[in-house]
Structure formats: structure tokens, C-alpha cells
């Protein structure tokens, strides 16, 4: 190799720098970025989203409270407050951290009484534990209803999308018909009819859940899966058009394998995102139904029925409405923001 005869920029030229670089040195320049999986990359994005992180913290706090509160708080959600084994009729509509006369007496004598964090209701029950229990009921209704929607919607949508052709055509027209039904009307009709039917049932599961709860599930199962089904079908139609499905066919893979290894993993993120967004809407519907008196049965509380019963004393005890209402808003908002965050982080459509 020639050494430079002349130095172009009056720099001090070091001849050794003009030696040929070794393969090793060159390879060091060409490093591949760190390996990330789709999931890791998505989580990294999710963790960068402040709203999503805040929502997650809120939800963890709420769920933590649901688990811990019944262990710590010595009151039950359906029992009247009693002092020394006797019912305390004076503990009616107390404000937060207030004590009834008889409780005050106990404290004065040196005994200890667990504080009523949110006060008590008109029937002398600790309101905090009722709100906690109501949140638990609302959350589980939301969760189970969404799972129900998930199962029915995904099954229906994937069958329709994968088979295509005439089957798809007929299945989607059914979805269109269900879509066009006025849902609130159907819900009210169904719960009236179901209530009558199920009231006489001896089935222990139905008895313990309450007929209204069962009818909510039935309503979700019958009506709310259509959105999910449409979405899954659309997603599958799109995935089916990708060349990797064709490649799998060219390799000789059977339909079951293609669905299992290619189609499901590729639409799972869309399904998770939709489910996360379905939960708040289910909670909302449940609360609404309970508020209008078609939801869970007393004495079982839900956030909606708590708000409903607080309505009567609204002028004197507005906080009794504020507590469940704020909880609903908090949960619904947190789930919605988390769902949005999940979509931003995991939806393949928004990538690249």
C-alpha cells in the first residue's frame, strides 16, 4: 500500500493509520442492536407512558384495597355496627372519621374503636367497607363480563374470518342484526323476564349470585360480543392476506397449525387491547343498571346501587354519593387510559 506522498491538510499524518483495517476492526463498526422481543419492546414503550403507568398504579391500589381492607376493617358490609355486642342505632349517617355516641363512650373509657373512614350509611353500616365490597362486585362483574365477551367474540370472529366466503357473509349479517338492536331496551326487557324466571330457580349458583347478576351476564353474553367479533374478524382477514400465511401453506402446514401458530399470536395484542377497553364499559353498564335498580340485589352492594341509595339523602349526606361515584370514575378512567397505553405500545398498526 502506498503511503501518502503529501499531506493534504497540514495535519500530522500517521502512516500507520493508513494501514488496511482488519476484518475484526470492521466488524466492530457493524454491531446489531440489542435483541428485543415484541413483548419487551411493547413493555418498554408502555412504561414510558406516564398516564398508563399512573393508571396501573391506581388499579393496583384499588385491587390491593379490595384484598386487604376486609382483613383489616372489623366491620362487615351487611352488618350494622354494634358496640359491645349490642346494635348501635346511633351510628347512623356518620361523616368520615366520626364516631357515634356509644362508640365515643367506649373511647372515653379507654377502649379502641376502628374509625369509619367514609362514615356510615342510613342503616348504620360502615360505608368504607361497603364501597370496597361494591368495587369488588363491580370490578368482578366487569372482568367476567369482558371475559365472556372475549370468549364468544373471539370464537365467532375467528371462525367467520378464517372460513370466509358464504359462512362469513351469513355470520356477519347476524352480527349486523344484533348491532341494530337497541341495547338498553333489550337489557331492561331481559332482566325483567329473567328475574321472573330465575327467581324460582333452586340452583345454588344463581341463588348466591342473585338473579340480577346472572341477567347482566346473559345480556353481555348475548349483546356485547358483536364488537369484539367484528374486530377479530377484520384482524384475521388482514393477517390472512400476509404472505407469511401463504408461505406456511406453501410449506404444507395445515389450517389448524396456521391458526395456532400464525393467526392467533398475531391478533392477540388487538384482542388484549380491546378487552382492556371492554372492562370499563362493562363496569359502567353494570353501575348504570344497578343505579336504575336492575342490577345487583340488596344487601349486596355495587358502586351503582350505592350511588342509587345515596340519592335519597343527597341533600344532607352528599358524600355518600361522592365516594362510589369517584370510585367509578377512577376505575373506568384508569382502565381506559391503560387500554389506550396498551394500544399505543402493542398495536402493530401504529408501529413503524
Amino acid at each position, binding site marked *: *500500500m502506498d*503511503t501518502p506522498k503529501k499531506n493534504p491538510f497540514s495535519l500530522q499524518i500517521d502512516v500507520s*493509520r493508513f*494501514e*488496511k483495517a482488519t476484518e475484526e476492526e*470492521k466488524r*466492530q*463498526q*457493524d454491531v446489531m*442492536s440489542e435483541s428485543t422481543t415484541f413483548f419487551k419492546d411493547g413493555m418498554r414503550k408502555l412504561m414510558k407512558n406516564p398516564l398508563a403507568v399512573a393508571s396501573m398504579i391506581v388499579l393496583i391500589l384499588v385491587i390491593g384495597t379490595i384484598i386487604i381492607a376486609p382483613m383489616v376493617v372489623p366491620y362487615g358490609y351487611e352488618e350494622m355496627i354494634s358496640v359491645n355486642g349490642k346494635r348501635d342505632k346511633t351510628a347512623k349517617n356518620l361523616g368520615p372519621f366520626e364516631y357515634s355516641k356509644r362508640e365515643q363512650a367506649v373511647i372515653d373509657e379507654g377502649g379502641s374503636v376502628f374509625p369509619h373512614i367514609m362514615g356510615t350509611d342510613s342503616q348504620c353500616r360502615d360505608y368504607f367497607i361497603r364501597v370496597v365490597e361494591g368495587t369488588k362486585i363491580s370490578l368482578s362483574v366487569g372482568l367476567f363480563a369482558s371475559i365472556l365477551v372475549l370468549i364468544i367474540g373471539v370464537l365467532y370472529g375467528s371462525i367467520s374470518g378464517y372460513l370466509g366466503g358464504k359462512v362469513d357473509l351469513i355470520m356477519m349479517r347476524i352480527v349486523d342484526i344484533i348491532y341494530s338492536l337497541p341495547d338498553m331496551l333489550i337489557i331492561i326487557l331481559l332482566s325483567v323476564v329473567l328475574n321472573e324466571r330465575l327467581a324460582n330457580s333452586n340452583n345454588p349458583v344463581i341463588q348466591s349470585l342473585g338473579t340480577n347478576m346472572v341477567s347482566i351476564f346473559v345480556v353481555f353474553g348475548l349483546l356485547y360480543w358483536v364488537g369484539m367479533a367484528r374486530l377479530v374478524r377484520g384482524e384475521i382477514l388482514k393477517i390472512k392476506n400476509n404472505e407469511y400465511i401463504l408461505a406456511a401453506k406453501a410449506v404444507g402446514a395445515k389450517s389448524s397449525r396456521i391458526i395456532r401458530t400464525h393467526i392467533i399470536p398475531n391478533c392477540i395484542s388487538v384482542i388484549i387491547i380491546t378487552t382492556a377497553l371492554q372492562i370499563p364499559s362493562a363496569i359502567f353498564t353494570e353501575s348504570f343498571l344497578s343505579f336504575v335498580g336492575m342490577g345487583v340485589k340488596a344487601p349486596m352492594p355495587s358502586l351503582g346501587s350505592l350511588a342509587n341509595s345515596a340519592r335519597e339523602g343527597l341533600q344532607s349526606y352528599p358524600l355518600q354519593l361522592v365516594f362510589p361515584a369517584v370510585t367509578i370514575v377512577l376505575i373506568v378512567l384508569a382502565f381506559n387510559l391503560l387500554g389506550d397505553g396498551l394500544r399505543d405500545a402493542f398495536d402493530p398498526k401504529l408501529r413503524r
Partner: protein
Amino acid sequence: MAENTAKKPPLLQVVDLHTSFTTDKGEVQAVNGVSFTLEEGKTLGIVGESGSGKSVTAYSIMQILEQNGHITQGQILFQGNDITHYSSKQMQDFRGKKCSIIFQDPMTSLNPVYTVGNQIMEAVLVHHEKSKAEARDIAINMLKLVGINDAERRFKQHPHELSGGMRQRVMIAMALASEPWILIADEPTTALDVTIQAQILELMQELQQKLNMAIIIVTHDLGVIAQMADEIVVMYGGRICERGTADEIFYHPAHEYTKGLLRSIPSVDNMKEKLVPIAGTPINLLNMPKGCAFCARCDNAMKICLEEVPPELPLPDGHYASCWMNVVNHNYVEEPADE
């Protein structure tokens, strides 16, 4: 330089242009110190592979970068005026009247809701004080100019009724409706078939002669460049590898990347031989080497190439190249050729 001041400034001069994008993975330097000159009525070809910064350079001139992109350094001089400091109003005037752009995909660059004629008229009306009827006449004439038969009928059609080649013609008609000095063509024929590509390229050459406009053609296709360009800029990893006349670049390439590129494409001469590919993978702009962008793939890479970005050296015949090999072989000339 003293005698040059009296001379008219070149039509377009890009000096040390830097454009970067803010992404969630960090700042990406898409264009890194690009300079070139475009003279009136000439064609400049910018060639490079994806991620070389060739399109970003074109978009920087028009200032139509995406939200997260911005020019960080350098000047773009149009007839001696720096347009990087133009207000958005001045820029609007510059776009269209002085400089127009056509894109790769004629499908998405036309609005499907309006008729073809409407869109050309719109382009005329934005920049000129004309009545509707006059604009309509201009639009129909433009359609005729770009070789569309039956212009009156096509005028009333929507973009989806036209074929790809026809749409690209309409795009050109729109771009030329306000009689710009410069036409920037960003991969104008990549989405088209060869026979249609030939039509469009010929049309562009014909119009250039008729209207005496300058063209900047951005492409990855060396064949298209060879046919169209007077001057060529070769880009890699956001930097210019070399620039010069078409003959210089094709027959005396002075950068290892250009040499490798010319060796690696199949041509009539090397049909029977094995191709000589460029090794390695294209550069990742997020992970730029310290030295020359091409060093990891270069067969003749030296130690200095890994450490220091090569300076742009003047070679004979108005040819500039940034490659340390020219220092080793002492190809460069001491002073720029034009002085």
C-alpha cells in the same frame, strides 16, 4: 472568488445541510453535511439506497419534513437567498411557484375525492390570480402538455379511474401548473412498470427542454440516473460520498461505495460473470460509526476510515469525493478546479 461575485448566483445551492429527526430511540441524523449546486435547466440526480438521506434532502429543500424532523444546520440558497429562514408564508410561495415536487406513489399523492382537473386548477389558483375559466384552460393545456390524450374527458375523471402511469402524468401536470424553476422528482418511476417508466422519463426530459426548468431526480436506480442526470450526487448514511458529472461518476468513480455499487449491478457486460456484491448490511442511522459511514462494508477500509470521517476532496473535472483512498493514491488536486 472575486470575479465570481459578479456572476449570477446558481439557481439552487445547498451548503452543509444537516437534517435530523427526533424519535423515541434518540436523535437520528438523516442528512449530515450535504452540499451541492444546481444550475438552471440542468438535471441533478441524487442516488442512494434506503436510509441514505436522499429523500430527506429533497424534502428539506421543500421544507415538507414530518413533524419530528428539522433542519439543524446549513443553508439552502435559491438564487442567492437563504430559504431556510423563510416564513411559512414565503415558503408557501416558494413551493409551487419556484419549486415543485412529485412523489413516488401517484396513488396516494392525489386526493381521491376531487377530479383530476379540479386538483390541477387548484394548483394554478393557489399561486396565480386567475379566473376559474382561465385556470381551467391552463389545466387542460397542462394535461395535453404531459401527453394525456383526450384531455377534456380526463379533466373530469377521478384519480381512481386512471392507471398508474396516467396518474404520474397528472402529478407532473400539477407540479408544473405554476411554472416552477425546479422540479424535484422523488423516485418518480419506482412504482411504475418499465415501459411506463420509459414514457415518464422521456416526458420529463421533453418538458425540461420545453420549459427550461431544472430537475432534481432522487432515485435508487442507477439506470434511471444514467439516462436522466447531468450531475450526480451519491449518498450513503446521510453523507455525500461523491459528486460530479454523470460521466465522471460512472466512468471514474472515486469512492469505494460507488465503485462497489457499479460492480454489483447486472449489466450487459457482466452477464456471464458472477456479480461482485458489496458485503454486509445497510447502515443503521441510529448506530453510526465514528468514521466513514461505509467503512464496515468497504473492502479497502483502513484504520483511519474507522476513526475519522473523510473530508471532501476536489478531484479533477469538477469531481468531489469523500474517501480516504484518494489521499492514499494522491488523486486529489490542490485547489478546486474552477479557480
